[in-house]
Every structure is written in structure tokens, then in C-alpha cells.
């Protein structure tokens, strides 16, 4: 899939917002631009056309505007980064949602999960819930937007893709399979403007009571190679992962399908 094959309605100029967070390098623990978030910025830049960078793409962060890693997003060629200045203990969802509504976003791009902080991966879902917009998780690319409907490619395991049609506006979380982010250059990074808006939000009380400790490495389960021949090993390495147990329900009624999901969630102890 070539990203420059992208088709947009000429009449409607898309308003795209990429949400970025403070990344953390897995080896050094140093702050950086987050891998998936920077892919979200890359996708945003491609969708709005590289030459008009900064015009219809808004790169949005909720947090501390002095954060150095924001500069490395800006180094991708952004003229400015919009920052909703927040207290570190505040819950960013509400002000983010309000801002997205105000600016009339058509497509909101996020990473799948942040590299630091809670890293729960819940931000796109909570925003979608708050705004009542559809969410497309783990997208690899956005192929076209025509007549208010976008064709989105979702990344599935082992390089598979699923094409999804979705109504604007929507939220998409960008998978690591999306095109790699362009290089961040020092000059534009230093020059970019931090477009600050001070907002207040309620303190995330649930989080207040949490205690943070570094993650402990869990022992890895030893992998037993059952394959006897090279062909079997090849198949094991490339075959589509087969879900065990599940069932495909296509012809049943919606009620039956919902009941099946409900039963499964109960069985797994998600719902009590």
C-alpha cells in the first residue's frame, strides 16, 4: 500500500488531530517521542499532504508544555504543537474531548498505548465513549476518505490487513505496523511553537491512590518446538494463529450474538 495513493474529497478539507504522549525508550528509559504516537503524526502528515504540514494537522498533547519529547515530534516538520496545559495528576480525557469537539476534528489518531504513565491503552476508547464516535483500533493506514466515509486498513497479526469503512468523525489508534515516522530534525524541533492553552480538569482520584513500582520481568515460558520437519517449522512460523475454542457466529440474530458475548465475558470473569 503506497501512502501517496490517498484520495480525499477536494471539497471537504479534513481536520486531522494526532494525539501524542511522552514516550520512554525501552532500553534507557529516557523520554523520547513515542513510537506509535509518532506513527500517528506521520500518518496525519501524509493525510494532510506533506507540503501543508501544520495547516490542517493538529498535533495535540495534554500535559506539561516544557516536556522535551514534544520537541522531537515537532522535529518531524511541525510549525507548532498544541498543548493543553494540565496538572500532572489531572485526568486528561475531559479536556481532550472538549478540545476535539471545539476544533471540529474529523479524524483523531492516537497510539495504541502510551510508553509511560498508566499505559492502559484506554485513552482512545474513553474519548470515543465521551464523544460518541466510532473507534477503529490498530490501524495500519487510512486509504481514502470520500463522502464522509473513510476506508481504513486495520493491522491484524502476521501482516494481515482488514479493510474497514467508517463514518467521519472517528478515532483510530495507530498500530506499530503503520508506516515508520520520519526523522526528527533538530532545527525545526527547536523552532516549533508550543501553542499552550491552560485547562483545568478534575483530579484522577482513582489514580491518586495507586502506587507505582518498576515492572518485574516475568519468567518466559520455554518454547517447545513440536515441529519435526522444516516445512512444519515454516508453517508454525507463518501460519495464521488459530484461536482456540471460539466460534464464528454469522447467521444468528443480533440478540443471540450479544448473548454469546455476554456469556463469554461472564465465563472469563470480566463481568460479575
Amino acid at each position, binding site marked *: 500500500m503506497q501512502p501517496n495513493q490517498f484520495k480525499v474529497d477536494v471539497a471537504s478539507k479534513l481536520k486531522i488531530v494526532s494525539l501524542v504522549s511522552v514516550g520512554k525508550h525501552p*532500553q*534507557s528509559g529516557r523520554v523520547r517521542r513515542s513510537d506509535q504516537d509518532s506513527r500517528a503524526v506521520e500518518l496525519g502528515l501524509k493525510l494532510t499532504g506533506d507540503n501543508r504540514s501544520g495547516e490542517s494537522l493538529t498535533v495535540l498533547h495534554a500535559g506539561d508544555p516544557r516536556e522535551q519529547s514534544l520537541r522531537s515530534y515537532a522535529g518531524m516538520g511541525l510549525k507548532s504543537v498544541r498543548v493543553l496545559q494540565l496538572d500532572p495528576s489531572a485526568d486528561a480525557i475531559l479536556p481532550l474531548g472538549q478540545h476535539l469537539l471545539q476544533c471540529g476534528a474529523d479524524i483523531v489518531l492516537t497510539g495504541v498505548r502510551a510508553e509511560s504513565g498508566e499505559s492502559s491503552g484506554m485513552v482512545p476508547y474513553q474519548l470515543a465513549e465521551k464523544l460518541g464516535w466510532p473507534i477503529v483500533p490498530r490501524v495500519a493506514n487510512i486509504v481514502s476518505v470520500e463522502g464522509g466515509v473513510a476506508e481504513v486498513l486495520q493491522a491484524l497479526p502476521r501482516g494481515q490487513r482488514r479493510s474497514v469503512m467508517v463514518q467521519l468523525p472517528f478515532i483510530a489508534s495507530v498500530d506499530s505496523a503503520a508506516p515508520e515516522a520520519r*526523522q*526528527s530534525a*533538530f532545527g525545526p524541533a527547536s523552532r516549533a511553537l508550543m501553542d499552550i492553552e491552560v485547562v483545568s480538569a478534575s483530579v484522577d482520584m482513582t489514580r491518586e491512590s495507586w502506587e507505582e513500582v518498576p515492572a518485574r520481568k516475568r519468567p518466559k515460558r520455554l518454547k517447545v518446538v513440536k515441529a519435526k520437519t522444516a516445512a512444519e517449522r515454516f508453517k508454525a512460523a507463518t501460519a495464521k494463529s488459530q484461536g482456540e475454542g471460539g466460534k464464528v457466529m454469522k447467521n444468528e440474530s443480533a440478540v443471540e450474538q450479544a448473548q454469546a458475548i455476554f456469556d463469554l465475558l461472564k465465563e472469563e470473569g470480566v463481568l460479575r
Partner: protein
Amino acid sequence: MSVEWLHPLLIATALALAVIGAVRRVNLWRAGKPDQINLIAGLMAMPGRYLHDLHDIVERGKYMSRTHAATGGGFVLSALLVILVHLLGIDSQILAWALLAALALMFVGALFVFKRRLNPPSRISKGPWMRLPKSLLAFAGAFFVLTLPAAGVLPEGSGGVLLTVVLTALIIWGMGELFFGMTWGGPMKHAFAGALHLAFHRRQERFGGGRSTGLKPVDLSLAQEIGGVLGVAKPTDFKWNQLLGFDACVQCGKCEAMCPAFAAGQPLNPKKLIQDMVVGLAGGTDANYAGSPYPGKAIGNAKGGPDHIITDGLIDPETLWSCTTCRACVEECPMMIEHVDAIVDMRRYLTMEKGKTPNKGAEVLDNIIATDNPNGYAPASRTNWAADQNLPLMRDVKEAEVLFWVSDGAFDMRSQRILRAFVKLLKAANVDFAVLGDEELDSGDVARRLGDDATFQSLAKRNLDVLSQYKFSKIVTTDPHAYHCLRNEYNDFGSDALNRVEVLHHTTFLNQLVQLGSLKLSPFTGAKVTYHDPCYLGRYNGEYEAPRELLRSMGIEIAEMERSGFRSRCCGGGGGAPITDIPGERRIADMRMEDASSTGAELVAVGCQQCTAMLEGVVEPRPQVKDIAEILVDQLVDSTADSSVGQLAREVH
């Protein structure tokens, strides 16, 4: 018919036009950025620099040096005397005879220029340059005949109309080339710009036998300024004396003949690059260029001007990224042009402004920024290689005679063998040494050569902060690239951490130990050995002797390669070239290994982990590759071990 007024008028006209041309040319240079140069001192030093520094380089080829001395010297003398005798009309037989002698000298020189141009080597430019010897002959010949009456050899007014017409035509041609052409962009421009380049050179330290190889730091505050640009985007972003330097090029192509990237068929030719810079500073196209092209790229498509972005139409970025920064071109250039400075200046723009470092460049830079090493390993794993070495850490001991700078070889299994060998030698010689451990960071060499001076400066400052906490009198490293940075490039950041500290390459230091008798070596009995000079040790730091002396101290007679010492050919590993990996027709490392194989050697001694990696990457069969430390360690006579064995033996009996 009296035409006495004609020739003085012609001379005066040619000189006046030359002055106008000179003013125009100077204004082209002045479009560049200012640089701190003492103009008067430079001009005063210029003749000495011509006779000494420049001529030392030309002297490497006897034919051309004598030819140039006769032609150039004869011309300068003739030009002065022509003004006295023919323009000012001073009636003196002595002056006339002196002029005749100077013209004769010039004529003889020009004959040799002519002879060389009969069958010119591919490296020199053709086009207008093929006309030059004829113009020289015309000038010298015509003025010779014209001066005969003044010298009293011929009676005044002898010769017919025909002779006068012919002489006049020849004088116009000769002066057109030599006076007018000198400042209006003809081949003789090299004399005018070259002389001024010697006076106003950006690296004044190079003259008088000095060495100046460290890159100049970028003023990063330009990133905050409105309209500021990091690196060089347009020709006018160069310093004015760099522009002057480009104009000094005599298109002899010695750089081209030495350039490893050119030989490998990568799209770089240092001579063409400098000529493209001239196109840039003066405006126009490269259609008139009459030398070898960039391999694989046709001539005539490059367009530029003083305010055009260089990489938009004048130079393909691939050309800039092909350079290994080996400095072979700079070392060879008789006009002392700084090709590598210019290339890195333009890379800086591509990396720091455009974010366009090709291939693995961006990834490597990201890794260096995030983990202080180019491969993104955990910073805390830097000393894992020495888990069994029991190395004293500076953090613990605070003070040692020698600080062993380990470099990023710590993360590479092949380089670790070199490090281990060196540690064994240090221990055998009872050297009081310590390492920085995890406090050491990448030296910044790769980041700087890839154009990311911001990251280089950040690493340099942080390294200097760490170094300033400890006391040591020497830094020794096995990596010539780190050596170069520490020795030549860390001085620009206002730290006194390296004041009164000697920075040494391990071969220099080991040679001292061997000379002092601290290391006992047994004679090497293996096969024939050749030595490969690493660029960053040799050309960048002038260390050619210590590694050779070390090899000789083991009884090795070095089978020298045709290109060794200051003419050593690069392994292809410098300047981030393996990272940007611009395709060519051959690999530089393969060519270097061919050089080594053709000496019949079975072992290539090297003093650089990067060279080791590059040369070992050549497919077998090929000579073995070993760092000098590894060869030494095999020949080490461990006196302490022997005596303890003896003691043990005595106790048993």
C-alpha cells in the same frame, strides 16, 4: 606606420579589465558568511605559504613541480616586467634583458605543460584547460619578440606590418587568457583565487607544517533565530573564505584519483563537487565542466546560484553521503581546499534542517540520542564485555595515570577481542589505569559525520563533564575515531577537563611501553604482514610511525601497500558511510583488501576496530585481519607467569 601607442593601450586595457573582474569575483566570495581572519597577517604570510606549504604538496610530483615553478615563476616575473617595460615604457636594457630571461623561462615551462597535455591522464580536466599551454606560449613568445628591440637585439621598428598584426593578435590572446581570464573565470583563475586562498584560508593552523583536522562546531543558537539555518543550505551559507577556496581549484584531479568512493563507482567525485560549488557561488550550470563526472551521473543537468538550495538541483544528496570523510582528497589537494568541511557542512543542513539522513542514518541517530550508543543497547550494559576483567572504575578510584577510553567497541563482539587484548597488555605492563564504565558515552563521531552536530555537542559536553570529575594524565583509546574527537574536537566547548591531558592512540601508547621495556615481546614468526593506516589515525592525526615501530619491534618486516602512509586508502568505514550505504559498483573494503593481497601478505595489521570490521567483511580467501594489540598479545612474554611457574616447580621438589 607607427603603432607604438597600440601595445601599451592593449596592456592597460587588459589590466583594467582584470581589475574589474577581480572586484566582481571578490564580491561573489563576500556573499558568504563572515569569518575571523587576520587579513594583513594572511597576506604577509602568503608568499611563504606558497613557496613552502603549497609547493611541498606539488613537489610530490617532480615533473609538475618543476614545470609549474618555471611557468608560474616566469609568468609572475614577466608580468611585472611587462608593465615596467611596455606599459610604463621604462627604457632600460637591464630590465629588457631580465624580461627576456623571464619570458624564456616561462616559454620553456609552457612547453612542458604542452607536452603533458598531449596525452593527459583522465583525472585532469580538458576543455578550456587544453587551451592554456597554447595561451602561455602565445604570451611568452609574442612578448619575447616584442621585447627584442628594447633589449637592443633588433633595431626599433623592425618587422613589417604582417609581423605587427601577428604579434598584436598573439598578445591579445595571451593577455586575454592570463590577465583577463584570471579574474573572469578562465583556467588562470586558480592563480588569483589560489594566492588569496593561501592568505585567507579557514584553517590557518594548517600552514607551517601544522595540522588542523577537527570539524568546526555549528552555532546551535541559529536554530532559534528567525531565518537561521543550521549547516549549509545555499552557497552563501558557507564562510566567505570557503567560497574563495572552491574558486582556487586547479582541476588537477588528484583528489579524484585518491577518492575511494569515486573508485568504487559511488556518485562522488571531489573535483566535480568543488566545481559544482563554483557553479553555485557564481550561478549557472555545469555544462562547461570538462572533467570526469560523478560516476553514473551525466554532466549538464546541475543548476545552481548563490541563493539556490544546493541539494535542489545542483548536487544530489547521494553525492554528499558517499563520502567516507577519509581526507585523502584534502591531503592531496595542492590548493589546500577543504572538501570534507564542505561536505559535512551540507550534510548538517540535510540532517538538522531537513531530517533526511538516508538509510539507517535516522535510526542510528535516534539510538545515539536515546541510548548514547549507535545500536540502541541498554546504556547499563556498556561494561558487560569486561565482566571477567576486573577493571578498576574511575567512579571508585577517582584517579589513575591512564584513562582507558573503551569506545562503542564495547558492544561489538569482534571489537571486544581487541579490547581484551589491550587490557591484557596494560596489565602485563603494570599500567595504572581505569575505565569510565557506564559513565562513558559514544564519542559523537558518527553523529557529527552524519551532520547531527547538536547530538555531537550534547555528547561531547556530557563526556567532558564526566571526565572533569577525575584525575588522569593520559587518555588512551583503541578507537581512532574517538581519539580524533577527544584530541581535536572536544576543545571547542570551554571545558578544562582535557587540559594538560595527553590523548593517545593505543598503538602510540603501546609503542612507548615497548620502547621503555615494560612489555617483553617474542619475535613474530608468522607469515608476511602488511599494515593498513586508519584514516583517523594517519591523515587526521599524523600517526604513521608508532604502529610500524611496534610491528618492527616484533621483528616484522612490513610489506607496504602501494597506497600507505598519508596516501593510505580508506577501508570504507568512516564518516557514517556504512550507515548511509550509498550503492556503487564495487565495495571500498574489497578494493582495500585487494591492495593488501597484492603485497602477498597473509596478515593485515590494523589499528582501528572500524577498519577491522570493514576488512573482515571481505569474503575469503583473503589475508587475516588483526589489530596490532591482538598481534602483540600473542607475542607477549609473560615474565611474571614464568617466574611463578618456576617458583611453584621449586616448591614441589
